[in-house]
C-alpha cells in the first residue's frame, strides 16, 4: 500500500455518495496503516480500533455541533420571518456568522456564580447536562450501515441515558439558590417524569411492531414500498401517526421547547433553572439542549419517519444519510414553527395533558398497533386500527378540552 493508492481512492469514494462516510472512514484507517508502515511497524489492531472510535466520535460531535450552530441562526431566521421580521442579517452573509459572534460573546462574558450557590454543583450541572446529550447521538443510524454503536437495546439506551439530563436540570436549579431556579427545576422534573411515559410508550409501540429494540432493525422494518410507491414508514399507519404525534409532543416536552418550555418560562420564571447561569456555562446548557433536541428528533425520524429510507422509490439515488438529515431538518423547522405559533401551557394543564390525554392515547395507540399487527396489514387492519385511535381521540379531546374550554360557549351582550 502506498500513499498514491490512497489518493487514487478518493475520486472513487466520491463516486459512491451512498457509502461516502463509511468509505471515508476506511480511508482514514488505511491512512493510519500506511503511516505505520512509514515508521516501520505493523499497526496493531488496537490502534486501529482506537482510531476507528475517535473518527466516529469526532464525526458525530462535529456534525451535531455544526448543526447546532446552523440551527441557532436558522431558528432565529424562521422565527423572525414568521413574525414578519428579518432576523439576524448583520454578521456575515445572511447573518450566517451569527453563531460565531454568539460564541465569542458567550466565551468572553463574565462567568457569574451567585455567592450563596453550591459552587461545586453549580459548576458540575452544565457538564452533566452536556454529557448525555453528546452520548445520545451515537446510536442513531444515519445511513445504511452508518451507526456508531449498533446496540440491541438501543431504544432503552436512549431513554436510560436521556434520564441524565433531568438530573442536570435539577442540579442547575437547586444549586443556584434562586427561587425562580428551584421552581423551574421542580417544573422540569415534574414535566419530564410525566412526559417520559407517553414518550416511552410510543417507542414501545414501534418496538412491538418491529419486534426489535435496535434502531437499525426498526429502520430496516420500515423499508420497502406499498404498491410500489407508498413508503412503509410507521407514520403512515393510523397507530403510527398517533404514536408519532405523541412522540413529537413528548419530545417537545422533554427538550423543553415551546409550548412546553415551562421550566424556563420567561414570562413567569425569568429563565427558570438557567436564571443564574451566564457566559460559557449558559452556552453549554444551550448547546446541550439543542443537541438533545436533535438526538430526540433523530430518534423520531428513526422510529416513525423511516430513518434513512427515501420517501419514494425513484428518489433512492440520493444517499441514505442525506435523507436522514433532510428529515431531521424538516423536524427542526417544524419545532420553530410550533414555537412561533403557540402560547405556553400552564403547569397543571400540562400535567393534565400528559396524564389525561397523552397517556390514554398512547395506550389506545398500543391497542391499535396490536390490532393492526394481528388483523393483517391490509384494509381491514387499517380500518380497525384507525377506529381504535379515532374514538379515543375524539372522546378524550372532548372530555379534556372542548367540554371545558371553547370559544363557542361564550355569549357577549351588546347595548346600544
Amino acid at each position: 500500500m502506498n500513499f498514491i493508492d490512497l489518493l487514487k481512492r478518493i475520486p472513487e469514494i466520491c463516486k459512491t455518495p451512498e457509502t461516502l462516510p463509511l468509505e471515508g472512514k476506511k480511508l482514514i484507517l488505511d491512512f493510519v496503516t500506511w503511516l505505520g508502515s512509514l515508521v516501520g511497524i505493523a499497526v496493531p489492531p488496537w490502534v486501529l480500533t482506537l482510531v476507528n472510535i475517535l473518527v466516529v466520535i469526532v464525526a458525530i460531535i462535529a456534525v451535531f455541533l455544526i448543526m447546532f450552530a446552523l440551527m441557532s441562526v436558522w431558528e432565529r431566521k424562521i422565527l423572525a420571518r414568521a413574525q414578519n421580521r428579518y432576523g439576524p442579517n448583520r454578521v456575515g452573509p445572511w447573518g450566517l456568522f451569527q453563531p460565531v459572534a454568539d460564541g465569542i460573546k458567550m466565551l468572553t462574558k463574565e462567568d457569574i456564580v451567585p455567592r450563596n450557590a453550591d459552587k461545586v454543583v453549580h459548576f458540575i450541572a452544565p457538564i452533566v447536562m452536556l454529557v448525555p446529550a453528546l452520548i445520545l447521538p451515537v446510536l442513531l443510524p444515519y445511513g445504511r450501515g452508518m451507526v456508531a454503536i449498533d446496540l440491541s437495546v438501543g431504544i432503552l439506551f436512549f431513554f436510560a441515558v436521556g434520564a441524565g439530563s433531568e438530573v442536570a436540570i435539577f442540579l442547575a436549579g437547586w444549586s443556584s439558590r434562586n427561587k425562580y431556579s428551584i421552581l423551574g427545576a421542580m417544573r422540569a422534573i415534574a414535566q419530564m417524569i410525566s412526559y417520559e411515559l407517553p414518550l416511552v410508550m410510543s417507542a414501545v409501540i414501534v418496538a412491538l411492531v418491529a419486534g426489535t429494540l435496535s434502531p437499525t432493525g426498526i429502520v430496516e422494518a420500515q423499508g420497502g414500498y406499498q404498491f410500489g410507491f407508498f413508503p412503509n414508514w410507521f407514520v403512515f399507519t393510523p397507530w403510527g401517526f398517533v404514536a408519532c404525534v405523541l412522540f413529537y409532543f413528548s419530545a417537545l416536552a422533554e427538550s423543553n421547547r415551546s409550548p412546553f418550555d415551562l421550566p424556563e418560562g420567561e414570562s413567569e420564571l425569568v429563565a427558570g433553572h438557567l436564571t443564574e447561569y451566564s457566559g460559557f456555562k449558559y452556552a453549554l446548557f444551550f448547546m446541550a439542549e439543542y443537541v438533545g433536541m436533535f438526538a430526540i428528533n433523530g430518534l423520531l425520524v428513526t422510529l416513525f419517519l423511516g430513518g434513512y429510507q427515501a420517501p419514494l422509490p425513484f428518489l433512492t439515488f440520493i444517499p441514505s444519510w442525506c435523507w436522514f438529515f433532510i428529515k431531521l431538518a424538516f423536524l427542526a423547522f417544524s419545532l420553530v414553527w410550533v414555537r412561533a405559533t403557540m402560547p405556553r401551557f400552564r403547569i397543571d394543564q400540562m400535567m393534565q395533558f400528559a396524564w389525561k390525554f397523552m397517556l390514554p392515547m398512547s395506550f389506545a395507540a398500543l391497542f391499535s398497533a396490536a390490532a393492526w399487527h394481528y388483523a393483517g396489514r391490509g384494509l381491514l387492519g387499517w380500518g380497525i386500527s384507525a377506529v381504535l385511535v379515532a374514538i379515543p381521540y375524539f372522546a378524550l379531546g372532548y372530555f379534556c378540552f372542548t367540554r371545558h374550554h371553547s370559544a363557542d360557549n361564550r355569549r357577549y351582550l351588546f347595548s346600544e
Partner: protein
Amino acid sequence: MHELFQKIIALPWDQAPQWLFLIPAFVMLMGAAAAVMLRNLIHCALCLTLSFIALGVLFMALGAEFVGFVQLLVYVGAVAMLILFAILLTPAGEVAASNNPLRNFKFSRAFAAAGGATVALLVLVSLLGAIFFSPHARAVVPPAQAAIAPVKAIGENLLNHTLLPLQATAILLTAALIGAALLAKEEKKS
C-alpha cells in the same frame, strides 16, 4: 526502546481485562459511602444517583446490558428524581428539631448511631466471612462463561416462564401508582 514499544503494542489492548469492572464498583462504593455519610440531604441524594449510575455500568460490565439500562432508567430517571422531589417537598422545619423527644437524652443519639454502626459492621464482617471463608463458598465455582443475556431471550422468558410474576408485578405497580397518588394527595382543608 524499540523493543519495549513493540511489547507494549503487542499487549492485548483490544480485549477488556477482567478487572475493569472494579472501576464502576469503586465509584459505586464511594458514591454509596458519600450518600450515607454526608449531612446535606440533597448531596446525599446526588451521591446516591452517582452510585446508581455506577451500579448500572457495573451490571453492563458484568454482561447484563438490559438490566443495566433498566437500572439506569428506573433508578436514575425515576427513583432518584422522586427522592430529590421528596427532599424538596419536606424541608426540615425548626419545629421538628425542638420537639424531638430524643433531644432530651443527649447521648442517646450518639449512642444510637454507634449502635447502628456496630450492627452494620458486624453484618459486614459476618457476610465477608461467609463469602470468603465458609466451606460452601469455597466450593468450586465454574469459570465465567462469556455470559450474555440477549434482549429477545429476556423478552421470551418474561412472557413464557415468568408470565404470572410479570402480571403480578404489573398489578403491583399499578397499585403502587394509585396508592402513591392517593397517599400524596392533599386532603381538602375543612
